[in-house]
């Protein structure tokens, strides 16, 4: 089956593609929604302009669609983007990296159902420590590019998701209910390398912006 992947450049959407490919599916396009609203309900925004470089590394065409990011209206933009992917690449289904968010998952399910295509959520309900371990085991190089929940501060930006990260996030999960995979928006990630990349990306430059408890790191990669 020929699939399109909703792609933010973070660990979840990338690992979902990895699972699909491991199961023998063709992923013929990546669909990235660039939201002008940094607090979008649906789409992760940090460093999304870098997804072009990730798409090149993956060797999969990228379809970019802009949205103003207004609640619910952004769903129409997503539907438009999926329609475009269906017409342009003949996709028969969508893959998402949704884990717990029923808000995201149910809305994407509705769009796919209306367009008569499949919807795959291979990380659905996955234990989030198990996900971190899977990423490490499968040699995904992932860094934190945004943090937005106390006690995560700017010092977490640029941290790699490795065994040391799991060691550090575990007590915060127990004490502050920080979601270990950032599913609650506590942090955002960026994939620098994984087994599907033809060539890994390196961080060349960073620019950190902190506003109260929201910290983000704009990266230049090459």
């Amino acid at each position, binding site marked *: 089956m020929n699939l399109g992947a909703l792609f933010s450049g973070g660990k979840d959407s990338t690992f979902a593609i990895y699972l699909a490919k491991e199961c023998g599916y063709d992923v013929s396009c990546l669909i990235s929604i660039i939201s002008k609203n940094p607090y979008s309900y649906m789409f992760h925004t940090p460093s999304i302009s870098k997804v072009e470089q990730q798409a090149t590394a993956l060797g999969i065409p990228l379809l970019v669609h802009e949205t103003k990011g207004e609640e619910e209206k952004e769903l129409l933009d997503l539907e438009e983007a999926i329609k475009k992917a269906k017409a342009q690449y003949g996709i028969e289904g969508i893959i998402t990296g949704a884990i717990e968010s029923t808000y995201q998952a149910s809305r994407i399910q509705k769009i796919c159902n209306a367009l008569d295509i499949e919807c795959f959520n*291979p990380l659905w309900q996955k234990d989030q420590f198990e996900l971190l371990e899977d990423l490490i085991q499968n040699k995904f190089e992932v860094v934190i590019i945004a943090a937005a929940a106390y006690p995560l501060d700017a010092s977490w930006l640029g941290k790699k998701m490795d065994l040391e990260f799991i060691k550090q996030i575990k007590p915060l999960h127990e004490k502050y209910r920080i979601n270990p995979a950032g599913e609650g928006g506590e942090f955002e990630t960026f994939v620098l390398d994984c087994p599907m990349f033809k060539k890994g990306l390196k961080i060349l430059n960073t620019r950190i912006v902190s506003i109260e408890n929201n910290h983000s790191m704009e990266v230049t990669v090459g």
Partner: protein
Amino acid sequence: MILVVNVCFEKLHYFEFVKPIEDILRNRGLEYSTIHYTQVSEKYLASADRIIICGTSLKDDDFLNKIEKFSWINNINKPVLGICAGMHVIGLHFGGELEKETEIGFYEESFQSFLGLNDNEQVYHLHNNYIDFFHLKEFEVFSKGRIPQAVKHRDKELYGILFHPEVRQKSLILNFCSKNNL
């Protein structure tokens, strides 16, 4: 041993509709074995103490074309829990017919003493069809409302639920598994 029956045609759906059920069982230390519905045989059924038939996606309904593969349901004397597609399978084998109704996302439903559900619950729906168990005399409906959400055979331990308990009602699966001190 709990037999987990996968009804998905699409291999990738295993992660979404079967693995979450396996995770609930594994986390509770319950022994299980998973098998695709096309591979279910007398040998597997004989070795199982209980059986869970998982759900699948809105479009993945190939199992309806091979519904005879579930004919064992009519004669089984072991507890069976059918989730969404699994509930359809049970209903179809007892004379029910699929009715159209699309429900996706959280819905408030009302239950009466059903595997630990006693009141109003927000349940996660993902279906385009349901079976009108109100017209199946062998079954009792344990939910209020027009669309049967939770049913049980009057004489056998055959349970069906239309929603996906792996999202918010994980304990329902454990209650099914722990009945009679399994």
